[in-house]
């Protein structure tokens, strides 16, 4: 059973991750993790101290669990850059601070680092309003380039194909072909996937009430710092991790959100971030692709009718979209001990597969506290 420990500031609860039901359990790992959560209250998404929280939490977990593999996500610069107006200099300082934070972690922990940026941000130029079509469009407010399209009328198709800010409209069969989808996965793929041009985002129902300043840019390539390795695409990061770990090193994989080729401060390799016309935006699909070494867009494709499953499926109620624990994630198959810490979303425990993960529990930037998940303990 995977155990979730929730810390809502001054109060903790222990649950079965799958059912969401309260469980009474204890043990060395659980007690250790409860202490870590108590010592590291989450400061919130928008300040740079949030990245420090990631490092400090991970260092505390390292003290208590002695892992060989650590997965970190720094996302404060992504949230701040997305919603706060800032000058070029302020943005540069923010990115620089993120690298300093990574350096601090590496210096203290002594772990060998592989760092990947999830891609550049670009100013929002405008929305493509698809709320008044005959059919309907679906995307979450975190995506920019993609939206699913269902039941479009011929008039819808004509108008959308002629829209100056829509790059193209891809049919379901083309999406399925690109990712070699299984019949089960096909059901989640929208009838059409719409692609916006750089700087534009789709406005669908359930869109954000907060208007972003910056959105993900065209990131066909992302930067990868991986000394001694060649990885031409993000699916190759997994084998770089395996190689370093098998050589006896302790390894940290750091994901820097909202940092791309334009801003990456350390020497990097150009790493392909998708296939053909598709590239990943920051989110669970990109993480799963990195950790599994396989393209994982179809697990929860952008534009799928997430709201249908939100109501119908009762498993993993504290895990966002996820309805099962993803297979083949790196840390889940790694025989040594692993931990993860991150401030991106409540999905670290799903996308990394780490034995123990700690993540912020923040929804739409509201700071609810933290959550730890213990998938397994007892490794030596």
């Amino acid at each position: 059973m995977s155990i979730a420990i929730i810390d809502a500031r001054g109060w903790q609860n222990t649950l079965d991750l799958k059912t969401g039901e309260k469980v009474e359990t204890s043990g060395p790992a659980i007690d250790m993790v409860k202490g870590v959560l108590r010592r590291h209250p989450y400061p919130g998404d928008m300040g740079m101290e949030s990245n420090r929280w990631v490092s400090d939490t991970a260092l505390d977990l390292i003290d208590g669990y002695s892992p060989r593999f650590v997965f970190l996500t720094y996302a404060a610069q992504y949230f701040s850059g997305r919603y706060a107006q800032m000058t070029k200099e302020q943005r540069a300082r923010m990115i620089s601070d993120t690298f300093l934070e990574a350096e601090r972690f590496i210096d203290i922990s002594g772990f060998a680092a592989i760092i990947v940026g999830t891609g550049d941000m670009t100013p929002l130029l405008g929305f493509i309003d698809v709320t008044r079509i005959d059919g309907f469009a679906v995307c979450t407010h975190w995506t920019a380039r993609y939206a699913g399209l269902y039941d479009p009328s011929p008039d819808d198709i004509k108008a959308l194909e002629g829209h100056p800010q829509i790059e193209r409209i891809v049919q379901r069969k083309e999406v399925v072909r690109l990712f070699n989808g299984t019949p089960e996965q096909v059901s989640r793929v929208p009838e059409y996937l719409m692609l916006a041009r750089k700087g534009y985002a789709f406005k669908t129902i359930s869109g954000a009430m907060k208007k972003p300043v910056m959105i993900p840019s065209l990131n066909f390539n992302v930067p990868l710092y991986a000394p001694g390795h060649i990885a031409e695409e993000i699916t190759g990061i997994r084998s770089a991790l395996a190689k370093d770990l098998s050589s006896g090193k302790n390894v940290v994989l750091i994901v820097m959100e909202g940092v791309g080729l334009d801003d990456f401060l350390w020497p990097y390799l150009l790493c392909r971030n998708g296939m053909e016309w598709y590239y990943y935006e920051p989110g669970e699909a990109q993480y799963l692709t990195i950790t599994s070494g396989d393209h994982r867009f179809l697990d929860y494709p952008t534009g799928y009718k997430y709201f249908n499953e939100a109501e119908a499926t009762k498993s993993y109620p504290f895990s966002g979209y996820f309805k099962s624990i993803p297979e083949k994630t790196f840390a889940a198959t790694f025989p040594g001990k692993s931990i993860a810490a991150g401030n991106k979303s409540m999905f670290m425990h799903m996308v990394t597969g780490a034995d123990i993960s700690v993540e912020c529990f923040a929804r739409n930037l509201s700071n609810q506290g933290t959550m730890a998940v213990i998938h397994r303990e007892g490794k030596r």
Partner: protein
Amino acid sequence: MHCGYCERRCEIKSGRTGFCRMYTVAGGAIKERFPHCWSSCGTSVIESIPFYHVYPGSRCLVIGTAGCNFRCRYCSNAYIAKEDPETQQDRMYPLAPRELVDMAKKFNCRSIIFSVNEPTVSIPSLLDVAQEAKAAAIPMGCLTNGYATVESTELLASIFSFVNISLKGLSPVFNKKYIGIPSSGPVLRNIERLAQDRHVEVTTPVIQGANDNEIDTIADFLAGIDAEIPWHVFRLLPEDEMKDAEYPNIQAIDAALRSAREKLHYVYFHNFVGSDWVNTLCPACGSVVIERFSLGCGGDKLNRVLCKDDRCPGCGRKIRMVGEKSVSREEKKEVYGKSSKFKTK
């Protein structure tokens, strides 16, 4: 001229606005400034609003506008409620009533619920939506701070079948300091009025050291109207002007609720992730009749409904619920009149 929509009763000069900045005077009458412009339009599950006793597990279309007639120091939607509505118009959804109702149908929504900000600031638009929604047999609900005038409350009652009223505190000192109003009197009056023939749930955010001493008095007030009114006690999530405030102590508030649970049949304590106090228990035998998960502020979910035909599976006691068989005023009197102090004026 004076605006009669809420108890602020602002004096508005021609072309100017009042406190909420959503009404102006034009042609000698109070007019809505941004009719049919919605800050939000999206689907959600009804538990997340929260409504715990209305169509459990159903999908609703959530709408909101901009502006508010309160100025709560801890507002969780300050960028909508406190910012000038005029500056927000470029990100609004301009949707006519028919379009909203069609949207609700397209996304299989069981109801349309106004939340995010205060419905009193957009009553004319909501009257139009209600007309279309009624024609399509889609009930409407809302969250409200309950500070509408008597006349506006009647309008709200004509629009909404179910209402969650935020009773933030009782003392004038608290209301002045944290909410920016002189008295909770109108809110209490309107709870009493709406509970006569609408389904009412009440929410109270608890701030330690500010209004936690009023828990018992609020429970007494609600029980005096109808002990079956579901009461959502919220742990304050420190945001906006109070973002640096301490998170209230969960054990202390839970302990303070003990006597309230004796007075009211459905007391919930949530607004924080992983709450243990979001299930509905049968008031007669204590069996769990509805299980939910709490994901914190605006994220609650249904797990399962254990009662059948709104009755406890253990003892058969009726559980208050707005379900597929809507409860009329007369039925409500019949069902609840004997077991509570529910009264009809």
